[in-house]
């Protein structure tokens, strides 16, 4: 379903920033994410107690000054576990984005630039990989490698690389017919330099959008896998694990699972707001050409 790419003059970078700052959704999302990142980084100092220390006689305690959100079935401080859980979510999101972006952009750019057989193989492989529902693919990979943080990151990254690559390829296809590339060829610039100079800055916006989506998916996938018992293993505190732990006592003590779910939701909402905002403020033509729909 690719539209015919037309040459387009891009607005200068400064002209892109102003509409972004004016977009309320984007700003809200960004602010929330910054706050979350701070919480995650400052976890060792922010958490009132150790997230792992059990005290069975204090199980399911009501909120108090010592335990602001109460305790779980083992007497562990819920607030501390949620704070440390933010750290894990952040780690997973950053790792997945870094991995899928670094591999996906290179693959997509190569496919788009080189064209021909390479592109055909790329498209075929993509179709096959995209046929596996993302979460299932991640499940299978974790099943094969064993459950751990690394497995989760690897699994989600592998599932997301095709999606990043597709966007990147579309960007490259848009840029290719530009006059100044031919001009660069005339001056004698090497292929690599052309790629670096023209493609990358133009690829930035759509790829960032895909990055926010992949980060959101990564957090939801980690939660899902941990909930199933296949993600980061207990007793490490992750939001998915906390929901799973709270499941057995959910009727008498629903707050534990509910709180962890809300944390995940707030983070993912923020990421989506950021992504939506970026998409809205992106040049509409660029958006259409890269096939970036609201994902």
């Amino acid at each position, binding site marked *: 379903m690719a539209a015919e790419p037309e040459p387009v003059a891009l607005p200068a970078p400064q002209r892109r920033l102003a509409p972004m700052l004016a977009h309320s959704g984007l700003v809200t999302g960004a602010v929330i994410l910054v706050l979350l990142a701070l919480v995650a980084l400052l976890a060792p100092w922010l958490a009132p107690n150790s997230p*792992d220390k*059990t005290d*069975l006689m204090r199980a399911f305690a009501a909120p108090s000054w010592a335990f602001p959100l109460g305790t779980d*079935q*083992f007497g562990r401080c819920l607030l501390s576990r949620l704070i440390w859980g933010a750290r894990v979510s952040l780690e997973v999101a950053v790792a997945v984005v870094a991995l899928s972006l670094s591999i996906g952009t290179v693959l997509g750019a190569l496919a788009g630039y080189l064209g021909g057989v390479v592109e055909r193989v790329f498209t075929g492989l993509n179709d096959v990989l995209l046929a596996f529902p993302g979460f299932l693919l991640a499940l299978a990979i974790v099943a094969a490698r064993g459950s751990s943080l690394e497995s989760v990151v690897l699994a989600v990254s592998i599932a997301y690389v095709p999606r990043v690559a597709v966007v990147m390829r579309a960007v490259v296809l848009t840029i290719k017919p530009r006059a100044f590339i031919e001009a660069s060829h005339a001056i004698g610039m090497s292929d690599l330099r052309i790629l670096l100079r023209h493609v990358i800055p133009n690829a930035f916006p759509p790829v960032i959008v895909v990055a926010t989506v992949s980060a959101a998916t990564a957090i939801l996938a980690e939660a899902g896998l941990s909930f199933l018992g296949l993600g980061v293993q207990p*007793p490490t505190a992750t939001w998915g694990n906390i929901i799973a732990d709270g499941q*057995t006592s959910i*009727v008498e003590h629903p707050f534990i699972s509910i709180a962890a779910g809300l944390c995940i939701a707030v983070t993912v909402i923020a990421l989506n707001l950021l992504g939506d905002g970026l998409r809205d403020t992106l040049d509409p033509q660029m958006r259409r050409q890269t096939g970036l729909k609201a994902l």
Partner: protein
Amino acid sequence: MTMSNNQREVQAAGRRRALQAIGAGGALSIIPGWVSLASAQPLERLRIRIGADISILDPARIFQVENQSVASNIYNGLVKYDAASNKIVPDLAASWTVSPDAKAYTFKLREGVAWHKNFGALSSDDVKFSFERVLDPKTGSAYRGQIADIVQAIETPDAHTVRFVLTASNAEFLHKVTAFNHGWIVSRKAVTELGDKYNLNPIGTGPFVFAQWVPGSEVRLSANPKYFEGAPKVQEIVLRLIKDETAAAIALEKREIDVFFALQQPEVIERLRRTKGVKVLERPASSTLNLVLNTSIKPLDDVRVRRAIAHAINRKALIDGFFRGTKFEANTVFTSAFEDNTDDVPKYAYDPGRARALLKEAGVSNLRFEITTVGLSPYDKLVVPIANDLMQVGIQAKVRVLERGAYQQARSSGNVQSCVTSVVGPPDPSAPLVTLFARKSFPPGLNSARYDGVEDLLKHVASELDAGKRKELYAAILRKTATDLPLIPLYADRLFMAHSDTVQGLVQNSMFTVQGYPVSLRSA
């Protein structure tokens, strides 16, 4: 003598009912589990909740209470425990005699007992076959250690007589042939013919016949109208898998199930106790849950390290806090269900300071310790606070949760540092002792601690004919094992079961199985 008209009528009615039952039983094996003919009569169906799916129904290799519950409705043993009193009573053996030196036990089998699904009649050869396959190392039975050094030969003088010749006098041999695990009798014909498929197609002589298994969902057993003690009062048993205990409680309240088996969670127990129309049964189990320490892996070979671990774990908090008082304290592997239990043993109170001191004395610092446990409730959860307790005294404790099959594998390898083991079963005093402490139970048996400090005592107690002296010997074994501490008893189990008031005649046994034979259903 001629029959009166009344008697003839009764006989005819009985025959009609029998035919009905047989017909229903036959039809059940054709109808898939979740479809039922709209026009069929509502069956008298006893619905029991189980918490995990079944996997193995071969007595030689059976493991896990769900499998054992299904098996206890399908199989019989030579003798069995009376559910309420735990006294040994006849089962397939109508009578038995013991030689004066207690070295030979001769059993006379009932006549006219038939195997399910037309596999012929029960004979003494089936009994011989059943025990010999347990003894055969190739079968890989975990229960081999229970009878290996005791039984010298099994003779079958005729089709209804079995004689066990023992290697030495044994006053408690009857416990070894009760209807549980290796004591369940199988048909030579069925096992040989079905081969690999036998595991999930068991053939027994019991009150219920294995009809169908819908993996992940339920097991159906249909009544055996030809059962030698009389046909069951219900026509079908359905064991339904409902993992979550709260969901199971709700199912019970809504009458979607009749019996809630394997009730563990304190909150759910409390909830059901408050529910009208539901009765909660409880009884001390004959098993303790033990943290087994592998004495062949350094530094667990140093008893001071093992004692440190015992002092580090807050067992009282586990019982009072985590289990909310639904378990009992245990200092030995015997529970109050055993007459031979004693409390006169070394005890290890919760004392983190002492734990640290012992570790220092043993020269151990930063011990890396891994507890391997099975992914079933509550065993996957209760190790979390235990690991944490160990961390508080400087032990780098980690938890590894394995799925049931993988857990069995790991434990049988004998290479795990620590695992959790419970010897569920009959109140046979030698059972937990032999299973956990005898050299013949070394892995692949359940003596994962590789401990052999009571071999002589075990041999003596087996051949001691005087009950009083036996009690003393048991006490000595308990004292020595508590001193050497190859394992730490975490708690003595308590069995909970709940049922709706439409269920009559259900008796809770101490073996952690649920039996449907005496049960009848009253209309709500």
